[in-house]
């Protein structure tokens, strides 16, 4: 409960901070301090030091896993804000407002990691989404930003509508909003549920796929990620998407039984293969790095969907590692991209000569995205493949996955090739030592987790 209440309070405080001070630098510092407070408050509950409790009638449930995911996502957000703080100031006139928006999004995130009731899921998704529409359109004078915002809003509301319809169906079938274990007929081994239950779950499935940008519900992603101000794209592609996945897993961990294991084993692989195909193949043909990363984030979602396949411990460990590896690497690549004067691949030409450190860091982030050993991305992919296999997926699905992983190397390495092997002067804004230092922090986390992945989840296993 700590995270939900503290993030809401911090959001409200940030809304009024601009009355106290007009210095955007100070506002940023207050925002970062707020993030730390939020992390500490959440840790306090995770470690049972102190927590705000009241009876939610079982609508919310705070377990170790959910609180731990909160911590991870908050820390990622902190790193994101810490790196991108100055860039955020450049957009719009009211820096503090953006921080308020971030805190509201994090409130939505904490609801999504703790809901035990479909209404809470709905509220969480709405709290998460509405601020995102604002963030997307925050570059008011930019037509692309506006277009992206409208597109996102229309598509988003549509999918929320589907979600609501699904919830209504499920309520119709079971008479409750609570996520309960479906009752299975012991003889036929088929759940005793009304067909409305299956229909509702399918609608939920569609809607959640939309939120995590899985094909064929991904069409909004490239346009929105591309149109939104570059500084906000990594946040949408990482923290928000990760929260979507956690909610997705929470719903279907148990409920897919009601859908029938057979149906599940058909639709999920279809979505996975479609997502991997669309994401990877389209990314190959992109000229703009920003758009390429948008497609790559679709492709990565395909890999994260593996966690939905079974429900072993590998799933949870795998998705946590994947979220961290993918999020940090994406934030890192975007942090470099934002310093570029234009986003074409050619603008990276010769970066290794003019700025070897930056080129090395970018390469490391790309390696992690591609899943090459010594970076966290490798173990993330390994855990996912293992989870998939343990859940009884056919070998063909794994082979498809690694073939697409090999394709992803192709487009990630285009950037590496531009930096190291192409001649030219990169069109890049000057970068300070301090900025590089921040990127090193990400790099070191990725490397450490790339050698000792258990550091991340030993905490919750105890």
């Amino acid at each position, binding site marked *: 409960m700590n995270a939900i209440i503290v993030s809401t309070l911090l959001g409200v405080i940030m809304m009024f901070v601009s009355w106290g001070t007009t210095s955007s630098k100070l506002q940023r510092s207050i925002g970062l301090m707020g993030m730390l407070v939020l992390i500490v408050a959440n840790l306090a509950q995770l470690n049972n030091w102190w927590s705000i409790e009241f009876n939610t009638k079982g609508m919310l449930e705070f377990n170790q896993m959910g609180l731990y995911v909160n911590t991870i996502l908050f820390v990622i957000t902190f790193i994101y804000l810490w790196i991108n703080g100055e860039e955020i100031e450049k957009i719009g006139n009211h820096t503090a407002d953006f921080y308020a928006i971030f805190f509201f999004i994090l409130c939505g995130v904490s609801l999504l990691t703790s809901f035990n009731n479909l209404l809470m899921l709905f509220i969480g998704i709405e709290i998460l989404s509405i601020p995102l529409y604002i963030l997307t359109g925050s570059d008011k004078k930019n037509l692309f930003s506006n277009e992206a915002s409208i597109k996102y809003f229309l598509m988003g509301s549509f999918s929320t509508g589907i979600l609501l319809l699904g919830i209504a169906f499920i309520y119709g079938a079971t008479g409750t909003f609570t996520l309960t274990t479906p009752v299975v007929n012991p003889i036929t081994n088929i759940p005793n549920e009304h067909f409305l239950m299956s229909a509702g779950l399918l609608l939920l499935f569609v809607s959640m796929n939309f939120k995590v940008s899985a094909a064929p519900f991904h069409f909004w992603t490239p346009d929105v990620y591309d149109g939104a101000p570059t500084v906000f794209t990594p946040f949408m592609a990482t923290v928000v998407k990760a929260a979507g996945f956690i909610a997705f897993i929470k719903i279907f961990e148990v409920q897919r039984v009601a859908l029938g294991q057979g149906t599940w084993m058909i639709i999920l692989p279809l979505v996975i293969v479609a997502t991997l195909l669309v994401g990877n193949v389209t990314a190959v043909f992109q000229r703009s790095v920003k758009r390429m990363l948008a497609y790559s984030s679709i492709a990565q979602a395909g890999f994260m969907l593996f966690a939905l396949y079974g429900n072993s411990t590998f799933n949870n460990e795998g998705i946590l590692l994947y979220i961290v590896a993918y999020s940090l690497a994406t934030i890192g690549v975007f942090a470099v991209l934002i310093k570029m004067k234009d986003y074409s691949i050619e603008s990276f030409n010769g970066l290794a000569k003019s700025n070897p450190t930056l080129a090395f860091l970018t390469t490391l982030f790309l390696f992690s995205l591609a899943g090459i050993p010594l970076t966290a991305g490798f173990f993330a992919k390994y855990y996912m493949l*293992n989870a998939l296999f343990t859940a009884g997926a056919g*070998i063909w699905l794994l082979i498809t996955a690694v073939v697409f992983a090999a394709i992803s190397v*192709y487009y990630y390495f285009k950037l590496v090739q531009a930096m190291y092997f192409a001649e030219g002067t990169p069109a890049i804004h000057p970068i300070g030592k301090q900025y590089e230092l921040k990127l090193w922090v990400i790099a070191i986390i990725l490397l450490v987790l790339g050698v000792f992945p258990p550091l991340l989840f030993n905490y919750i296993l105890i």
Partner: protein
Amino acid sequence: MLLLSTLCIPFIAAIILLFVKHNEKANYVAIACSGVTMALAFNIAFNGATSFDANWILSINARFLLSADGLAKILVLLTGISFPAIFIATSKNEIKNRNQFLSLMLFTQTGLLGVFLAGDALLFYFFWELALIPVYFLCSIWGGEKRVAITFKFFIYTFLGSLLMLIGIILVYTNTPDHSFLIGSFKSALLTKGQQLTAFALFFTAFAIKMPIFPLHTWQPDAYEQSPTPVTMVLSAVMVKMGLYGVMRWLLPLFPAASLSHAHFVVTLSIIGVLYASFIAIRQDDVKRLIAYSSIAHIGLMSAALFTFKSIGVQGVMIQLFSHGINVLGLWIIADIIEQQTGTRSMKALGGLAKKQPTLAILLVGFAFANIALPLTNAFVGEFLMFNAIFQFSPWMAAFAGVSVVLAAIYTLNMVQKIAYGEVSDAINKMQLPNKNAQSILIVLLVIVFVTGVYPQLLFNISSDTLQQLFVK
């Protein structure tokens, strides 16, 4: 601890080198560190070493286990000798940002040593990939004209292969009785017949790409030609051995039934590759490409001998792993000296080396004999044993493979003739004083060629225990 330090020294040296900007100093650091590694490698090979075992990832039961049996010892020895030899022989070459180059080379060495020493499948995979990454940069930055595209082809090829192997590892791991990646538990994994076939196919693809076996070899000649010569030396002297090593360490012991049932298939492919590469080698004019194709032929023969399942063949392969590395290293160094001093690799433009630099010409002839596997050279012992095994397996195969010996004599002697004899050509005339560093290394290598050729027991002693393990199962 010995094994761990063997692994750590090149790694630490590689990191140090990044900060040594001065060319000469970088050279000294690299040579000194690889020299220490070589000394440790000798120690491992002749005195043995206790294995190193530590927890790595507890939750999935992956261990950081390094151990050295006969096979590993042979390859560690080869790796240990190759790197200082390469560094000294090419120390005069002009290389931009030398410290970065040497640093990446040492990272490669770390990866290679890790591959040969790993006793845990996940660790093996980890190093397998790590050995590849620095090579990608080495070839793409310092290579020839078409380097970027060709290296990328090489990279994607091997990367896809290794990912398939990763699936194979997961498949076997899931079926191990104690859920562990240790080679011992992998051997006792309970696989159904279908699973064994699938796993065999997945592992085999990875190793076949690496060796490479026909028809997956297409990346190799281009990659050898376009890479800077020191990297080509690493690739063909040590790195291709990763594939053969993988077959011997993982493929055959883990999936004996599936391997046996595919033996004819693999042997046939290998022999086709041997003949194919030999015929192409005859037509080559570029020295580098010639050696590249000759190397494919030799590796093909080794893979054929492995799949005969005759202990004599495996013994031959183990000798040949080492011998081929030394021989091809010698040839590459000579090719490199010629290219550095004359600026050309085309045999048409060369000729008369014997008059201009007799010592180098004698060395060339020595290594050429080793390449044809004449008696007294090290390759003779290995090839004799391997042919023996292939003959026992199928006389027809042996007949076809035997043709390759004749072909090897044709292309190798043809090369010697074109380079060493005839009128002194303009290109050869440009050659300056002999490269003392490289020549002394060549002499040392040639001594190894003859010593192990006359007294192969040295190598048999090192490798004997693996043979027993492989066949006593």
